[in-house]
């Protein structure tokens, strides 16, 4: 019944529009005016809307900054992230200045120079001096942006220090596994051909370096103030390890190992206090389209104090121990 009513309404609406169009056509034919010709009053109206738009637009921008700005990521929980946030704000300040200036000129000119019959535009074809100015100034500003940017980039991508804690982040559809290098701080060899239900990372059991490795899922811990080096792998498709609170991201590519490192500077407990949110957690999420459950591929990150971190690590069994315990096998297979 409702469907029929909808169809009837649509048909009636089409007829109504048809009649409206007809009436419009007849009336404009009677008036004999040319619709497409832009009149002075059209120009005046549009120019005023242009100016109004300028103000409304900036009001909207400010509304966005005030309402949505505070909901962006909290302060960086990693050392390099603090510098990056500063750089971001620095660049944004420049960009916002340019944005404001150009928009004021654009819409003000659009307002001021609307067409009036009898007026004539000024014939100005070019001005070398002016053009030189706005080639050189952007070039200088960009040079500054490039220098600051690359300084940070070089620092962030420089090799990790030798005593950094090595953790493998292993991605597959659709979850993460973290493997700690253990006491020797060296990851054991692995091979995708060795993957089985019990050995989801394809660890080479003959490699002694791997026997002290610790494999965890769902949640991994890192200690405050110590550099952590991540070695990223994927077993199936490209994933991307994104840890927004640490301003850290790197793709996980099958067939190769990618790396990144950072130093956490705020523990989970401290961040919860700062944000006044007892449920807050740092998170690792997948940021490269990887399949149908891409939107739910995550792992919790906990930043501990050094002591808590050591305790947590002790509570986890090594790969060798796990392999020896039959009940653990059953769990792993699950």
């Amino acid at each position, binding site marked *: 019944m409702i469907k029929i009513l909808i169809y009837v309404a649509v048909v009636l609406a089409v007829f109504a*529009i048809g009649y409206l169009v007809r009436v419009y056509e007849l009336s404009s034919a009677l008036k004999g005016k040319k*619709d*497409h010709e*832009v009149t002075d009053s*059209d120009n005046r109206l*549009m120019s005023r809307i242009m100016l109004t738009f300028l103000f409304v637009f900036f009001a*909207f921008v400010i509304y966005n900054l005030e309402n*949505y700005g505070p*909901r962006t990521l909290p302060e960086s929980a990693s050392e390099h992230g603090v510098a*990056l946030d500063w*750089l*971001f704000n620095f*660049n*944004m300040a420049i960009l916002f200045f340019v*944005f404001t200036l*150009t928009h004021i000129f*654009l819409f003000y*000119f*659009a307002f001021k*120079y609307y*067409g009036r019959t009898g007026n004539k*535009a*000024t*014939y*100005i*074809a070019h*001005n070398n001096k002016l*053009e030189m100015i*706005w080639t050189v100034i*952007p070039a200088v500003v*960009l040079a500054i942006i*490039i220098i600051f940017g*690359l300084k940070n980039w070089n620092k962030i*991508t420089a090799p990790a220090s030798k005593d950094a804690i090595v953790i493998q982040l292993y991605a597959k559809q659709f979850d993460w596994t973290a493997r700690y290098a253990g006491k020797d701080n060296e990851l054991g060899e692995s091979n*995708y051909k060795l993957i089985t239900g019990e050995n989801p990372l394809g660890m080479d059991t003959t490699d002694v370096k791997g026997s002290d490795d610790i494999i965890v899922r769902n949640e991994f811990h890192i200690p405050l103030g110590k550099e952590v080096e991540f070695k*990223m792998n994927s*077993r*199936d*498709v*490209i994933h*991307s390890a994104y840890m*927004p*609170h640490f*301003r*850290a*991201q*790197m*793709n996980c*590519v*099958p*067939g*190769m190992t990618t*790396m990144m490192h950072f130093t956490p500077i705020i523990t989970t407990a401290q961040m919860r206090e700062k944000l006044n949110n007892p449920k*807050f*957690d740092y*998170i690792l999420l997948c940021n490269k*389209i990887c399949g*149908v459950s891409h*939107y739910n591929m*995550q792992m919790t990150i906990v930043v501990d104090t050094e002591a808590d971190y050591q305790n947590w690590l002790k509570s986890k069994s090594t790969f060798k121990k796990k392999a020896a315990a039959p009940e653990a096998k059953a769990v792993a297979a699950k």
Partner: protein
Amino acid sequence: MSAEAHLHHEAHAGHHDSHDEHHHEESFVSKYIFSMDHKVISRQFLITAVIMATLAMMMSLLFRLQLAWPGEHFAIINFLLGDKWGKDGVLDPGMYMALVTIHGTIMVFMVLTGGLSGTFSNLLIPYQVGARDMASGFMNMLSYWFFFLSSIFMLAGFFSETGPASGGWTVYPPLSALPQAMDGSKMGMTLWLISMSLFIVSSLLGGLNYIVTVLNLRTKGMSMTRMPLTIWAFLVTAILGVLSFPVLFSAALLLISDRSLGTSFYLSDIYIGGQALEQTGGSPILYEHLFWFLGHPEVYIILLPALGLTSEIISVNARKPIFGYRAMIGSIMAIGFLSFIVWGHHMFLTGMNPFLGSVFVFTTLLIAIPSAVKAFNYITTLWKGNIRYTPAMLFAIGLVSTFISGGLTGIILADSALDINVHDNYFVVAHFHIVMGVSAILGMLAGVYHWFPKLFLRHMNKKLGYIHFWGTFISAYGVFFPMHFLGLAGVPRRYYSNTAFPMFDNLVDINVFITCFAILAGLVQIIFLFNFFYSMFRGEKSEQNPWGANTLEWTTPMKHTHGNWPGALPVVHRWPYDYSKPGKEHDFVPQTVPLEEGEIDGGGH
């Protein structure tokens, strides 16, 4: 080849000069379907693009509904996608991915590459350089029909059992290479690759034609520095396409081979679906390099024609010469050249050597300089003008605004260090939609309104055009401006829903806000569609030169005839931007008017 084309053209032209009055009646099929006339082909491209754009926009509205109200039941989703992909009106996650993918592919390739260049290069190159037609009408016809087939294949995915391709418009392997990885990598991906291969053929046939026509068929007096900026933009665009699309073609071929022949160009060390694959030694990064070697020039293949149209429209309607004509040409060429050496900025986080990353930072940020010059020149063209607000002019000014606001955030993304935190999240989505999506669409619409009299000999309704502009412009910012903040809050793109993450819970209202504006934007386009199709048949008839423009297309009679000019080809005596020149009777001086004694061409006076 070019010489041959030239000869062919001469013969063709000669034929028309002598027997123009009595040309034989053509059948409907040869006149409107398999036509070799640039004007008909241009209209074919435009109408196909309008249909494809409408479909792609509807797709975006469907996934925007899901993003604003995840898990909510919408009768429309069930109605359009059926029980399979929209059970109880809830969008299926796989279908969400497919919609995102096909929306992106259609918009980037079918609408803003094929549609934009296909329509306006075809329409304006022969008209504005003073040629009878394209160098090769036959290749031009093939170009459209390959494009048409490609569009059909792109949509065909929706009718395959496992759905369309759904690995994102960039279709990175191994996700797209392995049918085990997702449903969208099965039949749908094969169709996507066929579609893309056909599209590349179409684009190359078109591009070669555009280049040859511009270089060889310019009429007497039309030197390169007397060409309108539209033609410069189309020329550089075509060169970019001809140089970069073959690389995408090779990427697609290798992907087809990996999918069907068991090769391992992009595959190595993969365990999927409970099985270790045989393929070793390949790298998905190779695909990324090949893809983005096209992918970045592609951005300018989309943007340059829109900027070219804008240059012309702003100058005509401000009744002023375009400011810095030669600087504009220089900028177009600089952008074109630089666009080939910046592709790596899409790959900062693939584990590439950080030093190589630095090089790409440098080259990418260099592009900001010619872009800035263009933006400043547009603004200065308005200064002391006598602006006539046709709907086209509004869209052109809108483009300048979005080109600036979208371009500026590109400076953040080009900075590899800052890219780390916003790579692949909504900040990027906001950036490229504003700078290339919205800008290019605004430019294309400006072109449609401005050249409608040449396309269909009639005018579009002005008032509906005004409403269309303001509705589109305001909702475009309403959709994409707040999106930056989602990115800065760390929301990744291509997520079916954010409900699994408590940290995104306080962003729900932003997504609702965005979707409301997206729906508004969609509704406003209905006004356009009505205006477009209605005006095609019943719009006000246009006179020969309704905008008082200088370029050659407005010297052709108001009917569509083969050969464009009934008599001899026009002879060009001056550059195209003599608007409001002091000492002239009218505020425009067509290019065909000879220089007076002592008059300086090219902006001097």
